[in-house]
Structures are given as C-alpha cells and as structure tokens.
C-alpha cells in the first residue's frame, strides 16, 4: 500500500480518493465526525461555534471553530475538557483540503501546543512510554499485548 501519511515536514498529509466537499463534511458534520474521531460529538460549525467530542482515548476534546471555509479549510482550537495542562483553547488545529485530480490532499497542522504536553493524554503514550522506559533500562518489556 502506498504511503498515505507524510509527516516529514511537521504536518500530516493524506491523499483521499474523494472530492474536497465530501471530505469537508467529515470535519464539520457531527455524525460524520464520529466516524473517525471520538464516539459522540456536538458541534456548531461556524466561527466562534463550540464543539465537544467525547470518547477520544478516554478524554473529551473541547474547543471552538476559528475559521470555516468550505470546502478547503477549517481551523479550530483544541484542548481537553477539565485538563490544566492542555485546557480547551490552548492549542490550534488547522486542516486544509486541496483538490488534485479526483483526489483531495488533506494536510493537518497542530500548533501552539504547550511544550511536552501534547501527548500525555493519549493512551498510546501511557501504554508505550513505560515499555520504552523498560527497554531503555535494559529490561525486556515482554510481548506487546497491543500487537496483533
């Protein structure tokens, strides 16, 4: 399978075999949003409108839309509800959609993140960092229960 994510310049780039209009719906439509992030979403897709997405690795993302430019660009603030280190509004996510033939190139940038704070809530890191520490300490972390 061809590589579909190119994070080598600090942004994620995904090529999607769909029109920008179709992809855009997945950024602003509550039902479609939960098909790829979280389990429940309430969102008000207009500048200044609030969104709340629960069920993201055990946390709830909360923020507001900054800019909505169908079908090419969405900017929203980002943070975790009830979290002091990355509170709602403390960082910003920008998604741009560029048509290329019958594909759309999606680029995602996550900026203004407080130093060292971005990853700790993700269950992936809470799972892997202790394992990494075990390896670094010369111990065998054992088989990865998450591996297939």
């Amino acid at each position, binding site marked *: 399978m061809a590589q579909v994510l190119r994070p080598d310049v600090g942004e994620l780039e995904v090529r999607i075999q769909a029109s920008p209009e179709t992809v855009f719906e997945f950024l602003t439509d509550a039902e479609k949003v939960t*098909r790829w992030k979280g389990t429940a979403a309430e969102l008000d897709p207009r500048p200044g409108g609030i969104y709340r997405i629960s069920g993201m690795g055990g946390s709830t993302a909360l923020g507001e839309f900054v800019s909505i430019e169908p079908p090419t660009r969405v900017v929203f603030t980002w943070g975790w509800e009830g979290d002091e280190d990355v509170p709602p509004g403390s960082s910003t996510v920008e998604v741009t959609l560029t048509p290329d033939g019958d594909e759309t190139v999606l680029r995602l940038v996550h900026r203004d993140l407080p130093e060292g704070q971005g*990853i700790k809530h993700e269950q992936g890191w809470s799972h892997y960092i202790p394992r990494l520490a075990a390896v670094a300490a010369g111990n065998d972390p054992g088989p990865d229960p998450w591996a297939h």
Partner: protein
Amino acid sequence: MEAALKAIAEPRRRAILRLVRDGELTAGAIASHFEVTRPAISQHLSVLKDAGLLSERRDGTKRIYRLRPEGFEDVRAFLEQMWGERLQVLKAEAEAEERRKHGAGSASRRR
C-alpha cells in the same frame, strides 16, 4: 518541539518545507515560488533554520537549503500518535462516502 511547532504555524513556512522535501534548493529558487519579497522569504528561512528544521550551506555567494528531517522527530511522533490512525480512518470513511454518492453503477469509480 515548541520552536518547531511555532515555526510551522506559518503557512508559507510549511510551503517552503514542502519545496525542499525532495532535495536542496537555493534561497533564490525558493523565493521564486512566492509572491512576497525576498527579505520576507529570508526571514522565514532563518526561523526554520533556528528551529532546526532546515540546514544551510554556502556555495560561493549562494545559500542552499535542505530539509533537516531529525528536526521533526518530536512533532512527527506527536502528530502520528494523535492524528495518524484517525486520519487513516477518515480517509477510508470519506472514500466510502464518495463511492456511495456516485452510486454503485459508476464503474469508473470502482477499484
């Protein structure tokens, strides 16, 4: 990671990084892709260099830039962890949605 995230917050700087992704370029060649002034591009190059995202070498009077992939390690790890798998799912869902929109009868859309 903070300096890198700040550096890539500016859209033109991200465009510069994409230009040098596949090989090195002179400052002039980079500037030729943009409508803004050469000093503005020099400023962006300087920010990217200071953040460790670009390396610079000189050839006579030319300054030549290339991507410094190791400068992106933390940002890349964060992005992949936070968004990588989710965007893969978004891709699959959006492509399924597109196929539904165009109907099962559209053979050209089928793969």
